[in-house]
């Protein structure tokens, strides 16, 4: 039987011949990536608008008639679920994963292009189902993004009729989509790497995506299992999670279920989900920092291991989200300990990013600005995580705005900063044009400072005991007038922050036609995706022959080199001054 390398599969059977085949039912990983990204950004904008509505209510209570207690809870639920699952996960793995994996490992496409196409269309359907819940009787579910039973399916919770059904269905379809994508990402990275691309020559972006995909494949089943069981409780009357209880004066038909079991299942998915989002971001920011500081990443091997260790540990910390649900002392101690241990490899990464910048030839390009911004916001969000990892500190803070501030800094703002860095960094490859630098700088400063103006004061609100998920604070005695003033100021800054995202969208669209020609490898990067024969890369990526890799992805500012970067495709000894080349060859032999 003939040996067909998975990295070099013939493209004939899915080479696009019509508009529909090229842009709609495409099997090209690059088109699929853009489809993923466009849907994710669209749905992310929807979630952003929902957050504006929430902020309007919190900053200026009882001013806007369309926001009532029910709609507030619905906005909150949909904002959270969309941002975490349908925007961040989809954009980082479906978008960047799809675009970058084959290009960075030197393959022509994903291992299973047809499955890849199915993945994006299943994702599209899941988003449609989710958004459809805005238009059904009762509206979307307002149970909070954690969907805790029993309140999720009991009368009194908004959207307990159709909203929750559509949410569960949408999640199930999303998980199918993710599984098809994840299988592709993992198999491609494991088996479709081109000649010379050893595991430890892979850029950290690929390592982040690789481990995050594995985590997704292992963690999303927990969400699927809980969704199936909850759907059965809701529709078929089983009692997996529903205990005996009286709701609105009526005894429910359920008995014997355990709401706590749902929480365990949910967070067994939910916590790794944080790292499913964070690890690709960690990887991408490493590559952006190295490229724009013209310096090899500090401690590459340590960075790889840290990603792997964080991935493994993240399955052992889930119950720190449940301290206030009650657990016995040894369990609390165990989960607090694992939570604090995970801070070690994470901190190590932060040190290494900082040391990568040290004595680098830093170019403050837009991607670099966002990458440096990420280091700030991530340190900030990470440190507050140490507070919350301790049971004794978490208990009084768990239901306050402090938690909102913490997870938005660490998982929202930080990840989004990397997404922006990555878009500004890889946009020239994707489109062949540079994004407008002035607009990008305005976008950076408004986003960076705006995020601080929104989330820094929120920590203080939390310390004062301002609760989260509340529609209105009322005249609560422990909240001084200043909390209301602070809430109003946060809302104003949030609206400004949201408004300035329009600059980014405008830049994205405007430069598509009017941007400066990027040419080949405008940042002087070493990794494979910049070495394609065409920019943007064509279907099949590599022309006639797959590239051969001769070195790691971080040969920046190599002493005695003829330029300040050496692409991965350049053989050892080349691009060095003559005398140095001789030394290197001697060393190799």
């Amino acid at each position, binding site marked *: *039987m003939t*040996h*067909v*390398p*998975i*990295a*070099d*599969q013939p493209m004939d059977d899915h080479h696009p011949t019509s508009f529909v085949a090229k842009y709609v039912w495409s099997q090209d990983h690059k088109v699929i990536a853009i489809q993923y990204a466009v849907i994710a950004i669209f749905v992310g904008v929807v979630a952003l608008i929902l957050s504006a509505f929430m902020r309007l209510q919190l900053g200026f209570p009882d001013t806007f008639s369309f926001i009532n207690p029910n709609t507030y809870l619905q906005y909150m639920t949909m904002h959270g679920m969309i941002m975490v699952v349908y925007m961040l996960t989809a954009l980082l793995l479906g978008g960047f994963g799809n675009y970058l994996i084959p290009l960075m490992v030197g393959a022509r496409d994903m*291992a*299973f292009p047809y499955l890849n196409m199915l993945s994006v269309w299943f994702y599209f359907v899941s988003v449609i189902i989710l958004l459809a819940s805005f238009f059904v009787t009762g509206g979307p579910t307002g149970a909070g993004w954690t969907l805790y039973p029993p309140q999720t399916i009991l009368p009194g919770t908004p959207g307990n009729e159709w909203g929750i059904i559509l949410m569960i269905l949408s999640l199930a379809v999303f998980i199918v989509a993710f*599984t098809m994508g994840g*299988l592709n990402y*993992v*198999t491609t990275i*494991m*088996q*479709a*790497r*081109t*000649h*010379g691309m*050893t*595991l*430890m*020559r892979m850029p950290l972006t690929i390592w982040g995506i690789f481990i995050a995909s594995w985590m997704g*494949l*292992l963690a999303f*089943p927990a969400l*699927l*299992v809980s969704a*199936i*069981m909850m759907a*059965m409780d809701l529709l*078929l*009357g*089983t*009692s*997996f999670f529903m205990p005996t209880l009286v709701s609105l004066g009526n005894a429910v038909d359920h*008995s*014997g*279920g*355990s709401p706590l*079991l749902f929480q365990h*299942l949910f967070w*067994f998915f939910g916590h790794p989900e944080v790292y499913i989002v964070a690890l690709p971001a960690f990887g991408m920011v490493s590559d952006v920092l190295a490229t724009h500081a013209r310096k*090899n990443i500090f401690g*590459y*091997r340590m960075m*790889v*291991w840290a990603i792997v260790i964080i991935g493994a540990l993240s399955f052992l910390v889930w119950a720190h989200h449940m301290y206030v649900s009650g657990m016995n002392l040894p*369990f609390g101690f165990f989960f607090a300990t694992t939570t604090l241990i995970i801070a070690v490899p994470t901190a190590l990464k932060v040190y290494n990013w900082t040391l990568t910048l040290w004595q680098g030839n830093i170019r403050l390009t837009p991607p670099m600005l966002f990458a440096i911004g990420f280091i700030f916001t991530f340190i900030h969000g990470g440190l507050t995580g140490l507070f919350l990892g301790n049971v004794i500190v978490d208990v009084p803070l768990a239901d306050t705005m402090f938690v909102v501030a913490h997870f938005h800094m660490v998982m929202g703002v930080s990840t989004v900063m990397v997404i922006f860095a990555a878009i500004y960094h890889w946009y020239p490859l994707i489109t062949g044009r540079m994004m407008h630098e002035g607009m990008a700088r305005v976008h950076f400063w408004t986003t960076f400072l705006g995020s601080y103006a929104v989330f820094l004061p929120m920590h203080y609100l939390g310390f004062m005991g301002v609760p989260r998920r509340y529609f209105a604070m009322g005249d609560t005695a422990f909240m001084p007038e200043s909390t209301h003033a602070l809430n109003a100021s946060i809302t104003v800054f949030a609206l400004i922050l949201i408004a300035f995202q329009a600059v980014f969208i405008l830049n994205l669209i405007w430069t598509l036609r009017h941007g400066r020609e990027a040419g080949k490898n405008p940042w002087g990067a070493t990794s494979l995706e910049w070495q394609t024969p065409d920019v943007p890369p064509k279907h099949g990526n590599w022309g006639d022959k*797959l590239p051969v*890799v*001769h*070195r*790691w992805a971080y040969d920046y500012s190599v002493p005695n080199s003829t330029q300040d970067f050496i692409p991965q495709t350049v053989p*050892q000894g080349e691009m060095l001054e003559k005398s140095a080349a001789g030394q*290197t060859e001697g*060393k*190799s032999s």
Partner: protein
Amino acid sequence: MNLIARLTERSWDPATSAAAAASATGPEDVFAGRQTMLHIFLVIVSVIFMLFFLTFIAHSQYPGFETLTGEPWKPLASTTQLWINTGVLVLASLMMHLGLTRARQGQMGQAIGFTLVAAFFSLQFMLAQLWLWRDLHSMGHTLVSNPSHSYFYLMTGVHALHLAGGLVIMLGALVLIWRRAAIERLERSLKLCSTYWHYLLGLWLVLFVLLTRSPETYRTIAILCGLG
């Protein structure tokens, strides 16, 4: 090169990195990719069932949970039907294995024949499971009568769904091979199918054992898992 050696490669050092690259295999074959994908998929299915099992064990420690065996009036007091169904699934798995063996020997006609018999037995298994469901339901052991019953229907149902999915994919592959006259692909397809069928048989055996244990066994497992 083993995994530890691959993960400790000093890729920044030209000499050691070049040596590591020289000993690497390069891109793998397409079939190897399919095999890897199947193995990962089976890991995912295992995680799903492991979570079902864990929640089942946790539930078994709550008041009101009734085990499925142990007393004459319990739904699985007699396991005869379960043994018959198990036998049918064993036959399906065996036929699949014989199909693969024949394909390896180049006897393609017989290979397809055994595979179709395996499909027949798989279908039989699903019908027999449906029969069991109907019997239990008629005896009052419904989906909602007790959480243990809910788990029985849920886990056997999800298992049967996986078998049905496997059948659809296997028959689809056979049709594709026949249409494209790509008989050389048969052996590889059957290798994947037989892995899947053997896995589902193993999973069924675990399910069988789990569902028919005594409260004491559940208690012991729960304590071992920290759920007691």
